[in-house]
């Protein structure tokens, strides 16, 4: 496993990117302007304070459901990679049915989420 290479490349890109940003800062500079120039973009009107930005709770609900389903998918990976070995040793039917029971739970969960309208965006 070329861990050293991965770390080397990550650090190289980090250095490269930081260097480029500094270069662009040096060349581009930062010119003064009226105070409104340094406001965050707000369609041309004067910005108001950022308090109470209402963000739908759906975003985090999606993220939670993503975690749970992601783990179920991760469980399928070692299964998929050993599946042919199990078939060769005659345990294919057992492992297949074990996974199908697991998937039945998964599918039940997915349909429950759909039916309970947890995934509706309006």
């Amino acid at each position, binding site marked *: 496993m070329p861990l050293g290479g991965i770390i080397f490349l990550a650090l190289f890109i980090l250095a490269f990117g930081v260097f480029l940003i500094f*270069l*662009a800062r040096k060349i581009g500079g930062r010119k003064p302007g009226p105070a409104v120039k340094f406001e965050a973009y707000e369609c041309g009107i004067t910005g108001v304070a950022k308090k109470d930005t209402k963000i739908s709770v759906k975003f985090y609900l*999606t993220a939670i459901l993503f975690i749970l389903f992601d783990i179920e998918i991760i469980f399928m990976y070692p299964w998929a990679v050993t599946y042919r070995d199990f078939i060769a040793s005659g345990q294919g039917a057992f492992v297949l049915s074990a996974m199908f029971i697991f998937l039945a739970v998964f599918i039940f969960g997915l349909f429950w989420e759909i039916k309970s309208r947890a995934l509706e965006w309006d």
Partner: protein
Amino acid sequence: MGKDTLEIAINGLKLVLIFLMMVQAVPILVWLERRGSAFIQNRFGPNRVGPLGLLQLLADAVKFLTKEDFYPRTAVKTLFYLAPVFALIPATLAFCAIPMSTPIQVAAFDAFGSSWGPYVFKIQGFDISVGIVYILGMSSLAAYTILMAGWGSGSKYSLLGALRASAQTISYELALGLSIVGVILLYGTFDLTSMIQAQEGALHFQMMGQTVTSQFLPNWGFFYQPLGAVLFFAATFAESNRLPFDLAEGEAELVAGFHTEYGGFKMLMFFIGEYGHMMVASGLFAAFYLGGYALPIPSWNPAAVLHWSTELLGSKESGSVLAAIIHFLSFNIKFGLLLWIFIWVRWTLPRFRYDQLMDLGWKTMLPWSLANAMITAVGVYLASVAMV
């Protein structure tokens, strides 16, 4: 990384070269995208600077470099500046794990008073035997870039764009991960090179002890996993935030999504990240479903090409170099075609609405990729059991 100093140095240089290759491919793709979109929409596109507008790339780079360095008053400067740098890392690290050609062999030689080699250099950044898991892990880190940029800008548009983009990315990661299960079941490995080797030769289906062989078609994964391939490709569009799934930067609603406040080189880095994800997706698709670097004719498999080039050039080493060049070109043709499809789709399909996007991800693609994995499992079982 290597046995001795020379090998380590060459492998390190190779990584830097792959990174620079990705970086310099981006202006070319941008040019291709602008000219291609102009062609599709029956207009001219950039055609003033240089022949066919090719020098536009250079002009753009100069423009990006000389732009004023701007950050809004409300920005969190650390995150604002770090986000574009981090945008480069996951895509590049993931791309380095994709095999691009057959290895080059170097014979032993004497230099600097000691003997070196023999070496085998792979045309691949890192040879990772759990390649798929590594690539998925690396590309799942891309969500941080988006969140850092969105929150660091201190702008409402950026924050909303970032939340949308990350919710979309993670939703489609499920369909992506599940469609890959079919591929893993098919080849029984995580290693991309073994997958490509499994796709050599002529197409043959095994079912209940019968084998049907087609001499004309290559043994590509696409013929075993058509549904999986379509789902995988669609999910990668959403992963790389490309139209028709570029809700994060729907201009009419969110100005430019999470990079609203970015300009100049910082925005260029986000671009490199986005195109990097497209390249990872295209490279993975080629490796999973289109035989990777192998030529599309069954009898011209990598071993045969290596044999032919060795006969032609007389030595094993120069033969391996020629074979590597041939396979590299073959990989790049597939790679380029897939990237062109990314561009083509962008200028053909309209954008989805956000609820449609989420519905498609959770209620259509997730169940279908689940069905694909189950069908593949049953198919592999039936094909193997009757064989025994």
